[in-house]
């Protein structure tokens, strides 16, 4: 579907992308992970022909991408990191404009537009885009990107500016869209990747530091410690005397920052033998940084 061969790119003296090669298979969701400034947006803009490539080659459906105007964009839907639209239009008018530009046939234009607006939950919105919230704009951005059923959907940080509810909505929409298209999406949030990606590539210092399936990545995931929240401070006291590990973070919470999963099992069995019912026991989410350290060390 999409192949990058030894692609390099620099801005001034700063090398953003160094000899990047990757391949995305059809009908997969490819998560493109990387810290801010790792070169995710640059890579995406090169795939879209919005930035020229210094060396190397990009192929979309075996057709090479050229800078400026590129034929390959007919197969691609793109959601920019901060989507901006014409504020004086309504969503339907905007999508009609996009459909006309993409050369969609009149016969299926109307039905497709209403279908897509239904999918992103903007079907009853007749006000102008001017007054839209961030989340609504993001959803309209996806609608715009999905129009014309592109073979490849490129989303640049679709979830980063949204609250958890908005984020879940967007991920659900992407998951639904997977049936029809291949999706590449970039993020710096690990849990987004865990939720929907099949394949993952980690971009670090302009190189692909790691690539593989989600399962492979999760195996590499470091144990990150956990915490126990008790219902009362006296429960905490009782447990802390039985199992004198961990530190107090507040009057009802004990934390175990550097412990392994085995320690969590010990703690759980101790809780059950002494019949202490905690409010919750939770593993900390590994941060992207810790995952990087793990991946890079290997």
């Amino acid at each position, binding site marked *: 579907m999409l192949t990058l061969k030894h692609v390099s790119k620099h801005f001034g003296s700063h090398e953003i992308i160094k000899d990047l090669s990757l391949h995305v298979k059809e009908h997969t969701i490819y998560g493109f992970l990387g810290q801010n400034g790792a070169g995710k947006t640059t890579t995406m803009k090169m795939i*879209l022909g*919005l*930035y*020229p490539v210094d060396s190397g080659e990009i192929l979309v459906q075996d057709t090479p991408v050229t800078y*400026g*105007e590129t034929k390959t*964009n*007919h197969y*691609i*839907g*793109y959601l*920019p990191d*901060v*989507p*901006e*639209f*014409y504020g*004086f*239009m309504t969503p339907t*008018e905007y999508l*009609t*404009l*996009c459909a*006309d*530009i*993409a*050369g969609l046939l009149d016969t299926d234009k109307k039905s497709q537009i209403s279908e897509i607006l239904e999918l992103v939950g903007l079907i009853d919105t007749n006000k102008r885009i001017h007054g839209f919230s961030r989340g609504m704009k993001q959803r309209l951005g996806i609608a*715009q990107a999905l129009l014309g059923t592109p073979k490849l959907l490129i989303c640049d940080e679709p979830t980063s500016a949204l609250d958890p509810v908005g984020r879940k909505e967007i991920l659900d929409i992407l998951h639904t869209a997977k049936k029809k298209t291949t999706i590449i999406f970039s993020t710096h949030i690990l849990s987004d990747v865990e939720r929907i990606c099949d394949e993952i590539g980690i971009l670090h210092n302009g190189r692909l530091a790691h690539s593989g399936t989600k399962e492979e990545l999760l195996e590499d995931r470091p144990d990150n410690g956990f915490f126990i929240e008790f219902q009362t401070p006296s429960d905490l006291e009782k447990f802390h005397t039985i199992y004198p590990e961990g530190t107090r973070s507040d009057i009802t919470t004990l934390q175990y920052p550097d412990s392994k999963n085995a320690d969590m099992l010990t703690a759980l069995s101790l809780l059950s033998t002494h019949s202490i019912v905690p409010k919750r026991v939770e593993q900390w989410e590994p941060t992207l940084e810790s995952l990087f350290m793990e991946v890079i060390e290997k």
Partner: protein
Amino acid sequence: MKPLTAFIKKEWMEMFRNGKLTILLILFILFGIMSPALAKLTPALYEMLAETMKEQGITISQMEVTALTSWMQYFKNAFMELIVLVCMFSGILTNEYQKGTLIPMYTRGLSRSNVLFAKFLTTVIVWTLCYYLCFGITYAYNAYFWDNSIVYNLSLSVFCLYLLGIWLITIIFAVSALLSSGAAVMLATGGIFAALYFMSLIPKISKYLPVRLLNAGELVTKTSSAATSSVLTVDTCYPAIAVTLILCLFNYIIAYLFLRQKKL
């Protein structure tokens, strides 16, 4: 063809909905009324002036107002019209890059030449509409109060100013392909105009410069063949018209070439 017409439609929707067209039409109607109104007021002003002068012992002969007075006023206002044009359209391309609204259009397959053409066409039509509306209003007033037949070369001189507007529009587009903010485009366009204005002080080249067309008002009075070279006549205005047309084409090509390379 479909992408182009769709984008032209978007441009017009923008003109209507963001109020630009309304404001331009009202302004140009005002300009159209102003010239004959000022001409009509001239005798009254003269009378007031004459009275104060009489007290000082100077007599001023009664001034006769004709269609010519009104047309001279019209050509004086034209500079204001050009300023309004540049102010209103200087952001036509840069606003889109600054907000990033063109990116979804480009990635959808709209070509850059189509963007340029759609915007250029829209701007030219709006300018034509506003400019000739203003002209029509002045013409109608002048015909009603006085006699338009006493002025010479009216359509040519009015066309000269119209062409000057078209030339400024092509400069806006050429400069917009190079710069990235509307204010910078406005300043650069003004700067180019000012530079050419100063160049026109050099007698040898002045007759070939587009800014020469700003003196189009000089065409409407009958000048004798002995007129000095500094006065624009029917014969001397054609080189400037030809150069302006060539420059318009040149600017459009510059705009196209640089827009194609522009990084978004």
